[in-house]
């Protein structure tokens, strides 16, 4: 997993509440058996017109936003289906960080597995960030838990365990296998009913 410490990048605001994972990556793209290549289908139904050409009114298609790495959004981002393809698609398009009002629990966990940092900031902060110019770089400092733009600094909270995971880019399974003996012991005490 990619480690994240201090990240500088430009933004894309998509301020609707309750953006669900069906919008982030529609089901027809879940048939692949790989983890890569989903970026071109990110927000597919909003991003492409019926004839398959890019929708010029959708912000992800704006030429001046193509280098953005930080998505600003509303409440309850990533609700609905558990599909991790949503996190893969955001990552594959180029996003490293999401700043929303809240997240669905499952989507949040999927972010922690993919080095996609889900930050929570209040509405006023997000509305300010959403108005920044397309080329305005902002700084996300994970160790200091702050987001800085030229005229403001916003502090955010994050669970220490997830923070550490993002900073170190730890593989969960290796970490868990250090508990192998405890898992073995636990299994000895599972009740059986036969």
């Amino acid at each position: 997993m990619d480690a994240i410490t201090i990240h500088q990048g430009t933004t894309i605001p998509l301020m609707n509440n309750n953006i669900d994972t069906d919008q982030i990556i529609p089901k027809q793209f879940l048939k692949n058996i790989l983890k890569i290549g989903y970026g071109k289908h990110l927000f597919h139904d909003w991003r492409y017109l019926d004839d398959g050409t890019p929708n010029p009114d959708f912000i992800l298609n704006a030429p001046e936003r193509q280098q953005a790495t930080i998505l600003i959004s509303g409440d309850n981002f990533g609700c609905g289906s558990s599909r991790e393809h949503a996190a893969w698609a955001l990552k594959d398009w180029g996003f490293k960080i999401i700043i929303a009002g809240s997240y669905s629990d499952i989507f949040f966990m999927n972010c922690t597995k993919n080095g996609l940092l889900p930050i929570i900031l209040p509405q006023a902060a997000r509305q300010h960030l959403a108005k920044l110019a397309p080329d305005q770089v902002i700084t996300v400092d994970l160790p200091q838990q702050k987001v800085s733009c030229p005229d403001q600094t916003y502090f955010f909270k994050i669970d220490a365990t997830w923070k550490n995971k993002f900073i170190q880019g730890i593989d969960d399974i290796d970490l868990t296998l250090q508990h192998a003996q405890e898992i073995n012991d636990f299994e000895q005490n599972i009740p059986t009913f036969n």
Partner: protein
Amino acid sequence: MGKTLFDKLWEKHVISGPAGQPQLIYVDLHLVHEVTSPQAFEGLRINHRQVRRPDKTFATMDHNVPTKDIFNIQDQISRKQIETLQQNCQEFGIRLADMGNADQGIVHVIGPQLGLTQPGQVVVCGDSHTATHGAFGSIAFGIGTSEVEHVLATQTIWQLKPKTMGIHLHGQLQPGVAAKDIIMALIAQNGVDFGTGYAVEFFGDTLQQLSMENRMTICNMAIEGGAKMGMMRPDQITFDYLRGRKYAPQNMAKAIEYWQQFYTDDVSDYDRVIDFDVSQLAPYVSWGTNPAMAVPVTGKLPEITDMNIQRAYNYMDLSPASKATEIPIQWIFIGSCTNGRLADIKEAAKVLKGKKIAPNVTAWIVPGSRAVKNAAEKLGLDKIFKDAGCEWRDPGCSACLAMNPDKVPAGIHCASTTNRNFEGRQGKDARTHLASPAMVAAAAIYGHFIDIRQKEAI
């Protein structure tokens, strides 16, 4: 200070980690399907890892399965995904209810039906509707593919213990009002994220009127209110349901003795309580593009108060203040992990018996599993549906998420017994209206919703 059902279940499963931080939790049952597992198995192969407990893992295919001519998968990418699951199960020694197998069906229908799902368990699956299994008194939740890989390799998962919410359901449901209406009303009144960060337990005397199938419908949609876990205390109805099922315990007496320890000591033990009187509840229908955008069938559609509601009206091509019964219905879908069980199919058949669907309506009935299909046919329900003008299909997720060929056409309003009315969920630009099986069946007859409580008028 006592403990909740959830606290007791959680405690029994913590392997490591201090309270207040993510803890390592043991998984008793891991259900696997074709869509969210291929990358997980690939990860195991790359790292030379095995499946730790194939005996606690069970797989089936459901999302991609055609409901017509099931062995003839036209979509090559779908076919590849299904074949990949077959190969992975063989390679890693995992039980598979394969295409056409008598045990095959939607993963959340077959787990309970086979007696794999039991009280006292932690159940996970790479699917958000895993909350369904909580109806048995278990911690059950959906996980992502990285977590699927982690559970395959270690039979454990890291989780931060959520807060607990008790939802007190009391009162007698009116005839015609269903379990689906309870959960839809709860979400409509409390929003699509009221349960985020919580494990939700439903309790109260209303549960005594509900079968396991009804209870599963409620827990299934906990996730639509943001709660990835919905659960209920195991009781005699639970035990009676499980007795004699294929993978249920041999020694039920011993199992029941163990299961009976799982209940909430006192209402004050929840972090939050919602009180819900079901006695005045009317059937609900959704009008918008998330499950909270729903109204009683007797009601009118809401005013536009923000951009999210405006956007939903644009997508649905509806307008504020029109009546819920005025929404034109050209398609119906009965099925899914929410309402694809035998009890649901029976409810729909009761309404459609001796009736014809409206000439402009297309109706798909998709049983939740092959066992449901066979049982329904034994009761002659398939004939009722066919005589009414409906299509009686093979089991699968089908038009609930429209990943297989079953898609609702653009612009069409579909009354659906499913769980999500998101934009494009049932097909690009399709317009979904969630409701109970009886409500959806009645909408097929009339071409619009009616208040099923007045079904004598039909």
